[in-house]
């Protein structure tokens, strides 16, 4: 079975190709069904691969499937190979699984869109790239997927490119990701020059065996971390993600919540031995950046009014938690949280999509309210998602977040405090959102005429094809925590499963104070979550406390604006200077001075207007510099 590993990414690709060929003819909704079934079969294949791997002994759970020799250049050998091991299969499972659900949802959501089949082409291509990313056996295959998901993300964000904001957001995502890609590329070359291979097996083996010097391991890990920051929207490269919400909501759910943005976390987990042998401050950096991002984004989420932007900042914050986990050596917890987060965040996004769909593309929460009555299923599933992310037991998010915080405490109590404050804020802003959207006064009645509706405007429940994924995801959000329960070693299913991949680098916290008092921390976490919810209830439902939503938070601490100003200011100025040089010095001599020439000399032709002389002068000056330098070398030596 595992030698059919290539089928997993191939199926979505085939789906995309079929839709390219016949998508227009199939039309709406059949091309959507085609794409959905492609991912579904891919999911089933992954499940088979999972069982095959499960049937093996723990240390043999790794299979490399080499498709062909890709880049035999000089001393470098890179194969086009896929790797099936517990980590990659876990990733593939939830990528294909969640994708299938979101594809299904999108059939309903995108119904009636003029570019229906194109949307599914992009979506399938995205799944293909994402699977290449997680299944790649070496950095280059992963990088290929990495670029692919970036490109698809760009295409899907600007899918509604007639909106100018969408085109701008797409560009922002592109630019930011290029910065990250740049880090990955340099890391790749460094890995190659120090290990002589790009394969994860070889790199991790070298790190294990101590053949990788700490300094080079540090450089590689840091550069990959830069890449991860770009992709996973960490400080200081986070600002593209909230803007990416311009894309259709299924895209936000799939790419910008569940899958693509977690690839940074995946990458760092993939090379965990390298991280392990690099200097200790690297892990600390990762943890600090993660913690800072988590807190920073959570504060912003508190005063956003766009239903999707709240979730976007929440995603940034949760990703920060995952990086915090990685920095604390809690790889299992990071993956655990990644999976549960995929469930409940996809659920929340799809739920918000359902609301937006029902509200005729209204995204402002101030114009919603009391929607649970008109949209009961959406409301119910959204509330489950809320409980999961807020950290209420026994929902999935509680267990994974708690696991992370446990490790963080062992690493540093200061970071733990940051984490727990983030958890408090998370509970607070999510409760705020639920209240604003589903409870309270039906504010949409006041705004009915804005929608150009015909007299009475009533939100409506979404079609069944959209509700089905919501229900499945809400079930997963409830039971997802069972993957890894803290009560007994026997219940650490995920830890046992991932052990072959991360065992060596996983932090050992068995003897720390935190571990011995883990139930105390558990209780503290519950208390904090409850406090957040109660606080939000007091503010928004009962109006007992004054609403505190500082403008600075709404403007995301002005960070985005500052970046934009820097880019638009000095950055653009540099480009403008060069443009000016080209336009005025070079072309100016051609045009402006050329005119003077014509008026003075009259009979001179354009070709004689002087600039050949200028070019020749440039050549001469260049020649004098080069030759002068050589002369100095020749004479001085």
């Amino acid at each position, binding site marked *: 079975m595992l030698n059919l590993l290539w089928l997993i990414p191939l199926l979505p690709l085939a789906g995309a190709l079929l839709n390219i060929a016949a998508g227009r003819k199939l039309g709406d909704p059949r091309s959507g069904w085609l794409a959905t079934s492609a991912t579904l079969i891919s999911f089933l294949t992954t499940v088979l691969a999972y069982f095959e791997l499960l049937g093996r002994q723990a240390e043999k759970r790794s299979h490399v499937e080499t498709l*062909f*020799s*890709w*880049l*035999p*250049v*000089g*001393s*470098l050998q890179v194969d086009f190979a896929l790797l099936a091991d517990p980590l990659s299969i876990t990733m593939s499972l939830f990528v294909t699984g969640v994708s299938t659900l979101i594809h299904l949802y999108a059939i309903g959501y995108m119904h009636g869109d003029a570019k229906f089949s194109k949307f599914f082409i992009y979506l399938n291509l995205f799944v293909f790239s994402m699977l290449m990313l997680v299944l790649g056996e070496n950095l*280059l295959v992963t*990088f*290929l997927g990495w*670029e*692919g998901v970036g*490109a698809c993300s760009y295409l899907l964000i*600007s899918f509604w*490119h007639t909106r100018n904001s969408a*085109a701008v957001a797409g560009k922002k995502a*592109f630019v930011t990701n*290029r*910065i990250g*890609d*740049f880090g990955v*590329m*340099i890391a790749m*070359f*460094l890995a*190659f*020059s120090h290990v002589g291979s790009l394969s994860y097996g070889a790199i991790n083996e070298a790190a294990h065996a101590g053949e990788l010097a700490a300094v080079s391991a540090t450089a590689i890990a840091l550069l990959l971390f830069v890449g991860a920051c770009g992709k996973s929207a960490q400080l200081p490269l986070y600002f593209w993600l909230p803007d990416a919400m311009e894309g259709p909501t299924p895209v936000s759910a799939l790419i910008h919540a569940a899958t693509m943005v977690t690839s940074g976390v995946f990458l760092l987990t993939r090379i965990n031995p390298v991280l392990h042998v690099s200097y200790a401050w690297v892990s600390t950096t990762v943890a600090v950046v993660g913690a800072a991002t988590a807190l920073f984004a959570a504060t912003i989420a508190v005063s956003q009014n766009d239903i999707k932007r709240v979730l976007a900042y929440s995603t940034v914050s949760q990703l920060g938690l995952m990086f915090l986990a990685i920095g604390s050596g809690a790889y299992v917890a990071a993956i655990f949280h990644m999976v549960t987060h995929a469930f409940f965040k996809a659920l929340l996004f799809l739920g918000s999509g359902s609301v937006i769909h029902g509200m005729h593309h209204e995204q402002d929460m101030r114009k919603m309210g009391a929607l649970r009555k008109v949209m009961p299923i959406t409301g119910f599933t959204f509330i489950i998602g809320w409980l999961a992310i807020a950290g209420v037991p026994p929902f999935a998010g509680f267990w994974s977040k708690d696991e992370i915080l446990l490790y963080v405490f062992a690493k540093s109590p200061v970071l733990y405090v940051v984490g727990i404050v983030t958890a408090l804020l998370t509970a607070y802003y999510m409760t705020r959102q639920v209240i604003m959207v589903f409870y309270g006064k039906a504010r949409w009645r006041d705004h009915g005429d804005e929608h150009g509706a015909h007299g009475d405007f009533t939100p409506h429940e979404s079609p069944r094809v959209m509700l089905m994924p919501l229900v499945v995801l809400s079930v997963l959000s409830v039971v997802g925590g069972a993957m890894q329960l803290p009560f007994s070693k026997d219940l650490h299913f995920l830890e046992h499963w991932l052990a072959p991949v991360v065992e060596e680098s996983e932090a050992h916290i068995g003897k720390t104070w935190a571990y011995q008092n883990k139930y105390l921390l558990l209780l503290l976490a519950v208390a904090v979550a409850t406090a957040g919810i109660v606080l939000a209830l007091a503010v928004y439902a009962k109006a007992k406390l004054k609403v505190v939503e500082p403008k600075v938070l709404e403007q995301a601490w002005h960070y985005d604006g500052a970046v934009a100003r820097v880019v638009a200011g000095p950055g653009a100025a540099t*480009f*403008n200077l*060069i*443009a000016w040089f*080209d336009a005025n010095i*070079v072309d100016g001599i051609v045009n402006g001075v050329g005119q003077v020439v014509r008026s003075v000399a009259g009979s001179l032709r*354009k*070709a004689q207007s002087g600039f*050949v002389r*200028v*070019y*020749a002068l*440039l*050549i001469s*000056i*260049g*020649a004098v510099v*080069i*030759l002068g*330098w*050589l*002369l100095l*070398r*020749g*004479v001085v*030596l």
Partner: protein
Amino acid sequence: MNDLSNFFGPAVDWLAISPLLSLLAGALTLLLVGSLTGQWPWRLYAHLTALSAVIAIAISIRLWGDVGTNGARLLIGGALALDQFALFAAIAICLAIALVSYLTSDYLNREGVDLPEIYALYLTAGIGALVMIASNDLVVLFLGLETLGLSLYLLAASNRRQVSSQEAGLKYFILGGFASAFFLYGVALVYGVTGSTRLINLNAALTSYIPVPRNDAVLLIGIGMILIGFAFKVSLVPFQAWTPDVYQGAPTPTTAFVASVGKIAALVALVRVFVVAFPSRSDDWGTIVFVLSALTLVVGSVVAVVQTNVKRMLAYSSISHAGFILVGLEAASHRASANVDDGLVGVAVYVVLYAAMVVGTFGVVTVVTSDQANSDASGSASLDSFKGLAKSQPLLGLAMTVLLLAQAGMPLTSGFVAKFGVIQAAVAVGSYELAVIAMVCAVIAAFVYLRIMVSMWLADPSDSTTVKVPPLSRISIAVAVAVTLVTGFLPSLILDLGSNLAELASK
């Protein structure tokens, strides 16, 4: 001594120079028969040109196997070299000739002046290029350079209806002559020091009886002047000023030709001269190449971003590509490193893949800007002509997208393989600074291609005029795209070939 009866000329391996002869035969047939007969029907000019190029390719492939078994060698008394490095470039040059001649045929028929001379000039330029890439002698190299150069000047000026074309040709001619003077002076100085113009003898002389280090300013100046001559031909900053003007003013198929054949020939010859003849002074020229490469990369990519004319944009992008290729040469100057040959392979692979990309790209530009061809030169090929191309002509838009992605160096296209090769070579020899500069520039340059792609895919067509893709151009573009994609997906196809590339004859 004067008894000429016992004079024997050098042995001539006729098969080994048959690619040259094939091109020559094509050129002479076109000129001779073309001048005696009227207008040929059925695009025969282009077919004949392509045929002689394809025959040259076939012979080169035959020779490739021969060199593979018997090893690299020198021809005709050591004037020319026969090795896979040269054959590899020769195949690319001939392919470019064939593709460009088809593009030209459509272009000229649209303009209503299908003349045999243009095609003959392509073939003579090809002869010059083949001589250059294989030359093992500085004098022969210079003549090849001039043969190629003169043909290119004429081609650039060949559109007599446009002042801009004439102007481009004249500028190119004057500046080219200036650069040639540098080159020739350099050859003279080097000859003065070593007493030879044969590359192999130069190396022998420089390593044996003129030991390093010593006071050899004349030699270094000579090397420097040769480098300057080349730098002009491959448009390295600050010798690049002519490039945008010529690329913009010349007829678009000619631009494709200048960018592909002109560049391959000069770069391959540059590499051969410096690696074969002057390895003993690689510390000196390596530094200059480093600086030139970095400057070229930065200026090329940054200035490309602010252009509005697509041909100018691509001109600057071709400048930045030259910078990339020079990264490979810089890597080849680190003679202490064990991986020094990676640079050579990187350069060879890069030029060949780049040729396919650039011919395809300019092919699309030729087709797309057809309607404005008769208008003012500065107005043609503006970014606006590409607006909504993907909607009116999806296949053409797709082809252009693939080619642009390749130029940007996206994985799964040949551009990635090319860029990866040279950067990997730079890293392998420890030239990290240049590798980083190159990668930053790749990121900057990606914007250029993105701009064209965005206007193709996201903008609506500016007017209702539809672009027609003539059949021969279609073939050219399709072949270019196919090369780009196939080598991108299966780079091993081309990289496996490259294993012996670094075995230069007489190295």
